């Protein structure tokens, strides 16, 4: 990554009459689009030659940080290495050129990939069948909740519109429930960071016949395994609800415990987390939804075809590359890495819940609060040292949450170097707090004015030009 900003917009490189493409001649004759149906003005797209376009986007990429650039301990996002073979396989023309409505007889290879991936995901989760229609994790959550809603409707159980989520849940859970027309009730966390069973019992006795489902991750967003999961599942099942597993934190469970065996009925998997497909700057991902036997008939139509097939190709390549012999090491190694960082830093960073974690854990800022250095400052200072920041200010249970997830891919040397930098920042916070508070210093840009962006939104080039005049 460069430490100087490349800031041109492609529109600013445009020169009238230039182009970066070549097209065949028209051998078909003069067919004219009816004038009344034509746009009156051309779209003001940039006019650039090919080299200008290539340089522009290459320079832009140098303003970016990815997993391939450096360590990316972004909690709950599972930023693992994206193997290069995955990309090549997904780009095979025999798959890339397939139209989604091609008849089955002409797409047998693609169909086989879908079937094999389905089988593998069932084996890894202990569920019976997956639908691949959901395009992303949030789309998977929505799809899974629709399965649950469809199930209750099919039984004429129309009152079941409430979904229990822990207060530590990711914001998507309540948002997905709302889109699905369901209502959220929050169950409290106990001081040990787990679902408070007494509070859950109270909710179940109050709301029993209205409960559609309980939605949770396990390990939870604090990286802690919900040890009472069998009791939780029993409570929910006994009152007629279903158990939904948010697959956001599935990675540490590979080789340890399957959602189906924990008592979950429906789940989604973020293929872009656990199964190594690239995050692509925010997508595309894929969020296949798996169900216990008997619930397949309730899969909804949430997209037309097989979902993000290209992402599925990458995920199956990953599963095949690790295979039966290696995949069970994923969870333990990710868990070991997280615990190693936690134990190596807990004397200088506040660890609110001091216990064995899974793939991630949460600090509540620096231990020494007297310096005034916040989690935000620590995160920005990490950028100076060539690291991506951890997830900050989530979960909402603590004021200064700093959530670290290293994944199984990182070596001891990488972790040691990161630990050394985190300790150095803690020292800097004492010795020279201003240095940390004014970070970052070595990045292409400094801290940004978020307030200005929201107060006076400029979201297109045209608005920018109008604003300048």
């Amino acid at each position, binding site marked *: 990554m460069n430490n100087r900003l490349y800031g041109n917009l492609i529109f600013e490189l445009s020169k009238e009459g230039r182009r970066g493409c070549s097209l065949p001649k028209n051998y078909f004759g003069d067919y004219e689009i009816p004038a009344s149906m034509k746009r009156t003005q051309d779209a003001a797209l940039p006019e650039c030659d090919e080299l200008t376009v290539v340089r522009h986007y290459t320079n832009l990429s140098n303003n970016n940080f*990815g997993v391939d650039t450096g360590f990316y301990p972004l909690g709950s996002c599972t930023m693992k290495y994206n193997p290069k073979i995955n990309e090549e396989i997904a780009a095979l023309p025999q798959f890339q050129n397939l139209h989604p409505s091609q008849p089955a007889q002409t797409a047998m290879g693609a169909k086989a990939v879908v079937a094999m991936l389905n089988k593998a995901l069932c084996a890894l989760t202990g569920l019976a069948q997956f639908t691949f229609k959901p395009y992303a994790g949030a789309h998977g959550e929505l799809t899974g909740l629709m399965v649950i809603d469809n199930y209750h409707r099919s039984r004429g159980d129309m009152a079941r519109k409430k979904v229990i989520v822990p207060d530590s849940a*990711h914001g998507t859970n309540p948002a997905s429930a709302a889109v699905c027309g369901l209502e959220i009730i929050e169950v409290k966390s106990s001081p040990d960071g787990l679902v408070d069973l007494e509070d859950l019992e109270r909710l179940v006795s109050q709301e029993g016949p209205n409960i559609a489902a309980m939605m949770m991750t396990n390990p939870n967003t604090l990286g802690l395994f919900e040890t009472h999961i069998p009791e939780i599942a029993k409570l929910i099942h006994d009152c007629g609800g279903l158990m939904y597993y948010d697959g956001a934190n599935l990675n540490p469970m590979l080789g340890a415990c399957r959602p189906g065996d924990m008592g979950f009925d429906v789940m989604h998997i973020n293929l872009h987390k656990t199964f190594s497909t690239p995050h692509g700057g925010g997508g595309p991902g894929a969020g296949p939804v798996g169900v216990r036997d008997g619930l397949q008939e309730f899969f909804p139509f949430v997209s037309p075809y097989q979902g993000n097939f290209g992402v599925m190709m990458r995920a199956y390549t990953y599963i095949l590359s690790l295979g039966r012999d290696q995949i069970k090491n994923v969870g333990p190694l990710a868990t070991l890495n997280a615990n190693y960082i936690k134990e190596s830093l807990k004397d200088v960073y506040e660890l609110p819940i001091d216990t064995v974690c899974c793939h991630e854990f949460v600090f509540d800022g620096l231990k020494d609060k007297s310096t005034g250095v916040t989690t935000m400052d620590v995160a920005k200072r990490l950028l100076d040292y060539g690291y991506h920041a951890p997830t900050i200010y989530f979960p909402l249970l603590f004021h200064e949450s700093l959530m670290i997830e290293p994944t199984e891919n990182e070596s001891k040397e990488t972790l040691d170097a990161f630990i050394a930098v985190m300790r150095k920042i803690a020292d800097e916070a004492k010795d020279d707090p201003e240095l940390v508070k004014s970070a970052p210093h070595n990045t292409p840009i400094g801290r940004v004015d978020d307030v200005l962006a929201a107060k006076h939104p400029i979201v297109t080039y045209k608005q920018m030009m109008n604003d300048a005049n």
Partner: protein
Amino acid sequence: MLDKVGLKSLDGLYDQIPEDIRFKGDYEIPLGASEIEVRQLFERLGSQNQQMTCFAGYGVYDHYTPSVIPNLLSRSEFLTSYTPYQAEISQGTLHYIFEYQSMMAELTGMDISNASMYDGTTATAEAMLMAVAAGKKQNKVLVSETVNSNTRKVLDTYALHHGVELETIAGKDGVTDIDDLKARLADGGVAGVIVQQPNAYGIIEDYTGFADVCHENKALFIMNSVAADLAVLKTPGEWGADIAVGDGQSLGIPMQYGGPYVGYMCCTEKLIRKMPGRIVGMTNDNRNQRVFVLTLQAREQHIRRQKATSNICSNQSLMALWVTVYLSLMGKQGLKEAAQLSYAGAHYLCDGLMKTGKFHLVYDKPFFNEFLVKYDGDTDALYQRFIEAGILGGVKLDTGILFAVTEKRTKEEIDNLLTIAAL
């Protein structure tokens, strides 16, 4: 490392998991394979897919992908990054999203765009939810019968669970019946009206007067369009749409058996705070540089939770970059030429099919690069003859065969199809 953690073996890491739910055995998946073996397997599977000359469309089109695009997109600084929360080290992503938003707003003739959505069908569903949320007590959305049935099925799903009342506006001779629309609007309670351009049968509809009747009845006018066709067609903005949605796949994204594609959503400036999804905006940094940042996040799920405008977290960032590079390369002229070539090829094919005397157009209306015909003989047998010749001869609908042509189809390929069709 185990010493530091205070454990003797990796197994101890999971002591907190109740013994009876621990997974102890081996997963029933294949043994690990080397890169060579993985490649061989996929090549073998690939050979079971038939490579065909594509005349199928119905929302997914075989446009050409310039070689620059996959090359640039393989840059791992783009590929292996996450959502650009840390603006200081994510200017690459934020910057191209700003360009993407600018280009999509241009193409659709709308004020603003979000940072992209999953695909065209789900973007349309999000527009429906947006209309209902923007409407005060209106909970009804009208959808034209001429909207693609895949989009309609996704709308039906979202509407069922969210409690939106969906009604169909009748079609008349292959286009939306404005009289039926007026009658339904007059019943009241309508938050939004959804139409498609070109419609499901490839027909270019005349939407004169639609926006006015929608607005007179306080309903938002939502138009779903094939992105590439907007290079030449009258834009949703010109038709008076409040929200423009659709799929960006036609902007050079490979068909790849259904995804990933990219949905776009643009709207008028006054609806910006109702919009779902990520939005990137311009601002300054503390070094006084022009920079870009995720903005208006108070709409989103990680802040508003159940009160968010949508549950969507990600955008379809890398595919938005795909589209952005495509539009940069094609530019103002190239995009128009590709659209005109597709138009000309489709009309040449249609003329040829008519000349065989065995086909007729189901609707006699202006069409773009896709058209619906009825075959006088056995349609299934004809379709099979195409397949045997390596041709994907359109998409079979209940009412006929829908043929699509892009700039990729040569005259030889079309003539070959015509020869088989004439047999």
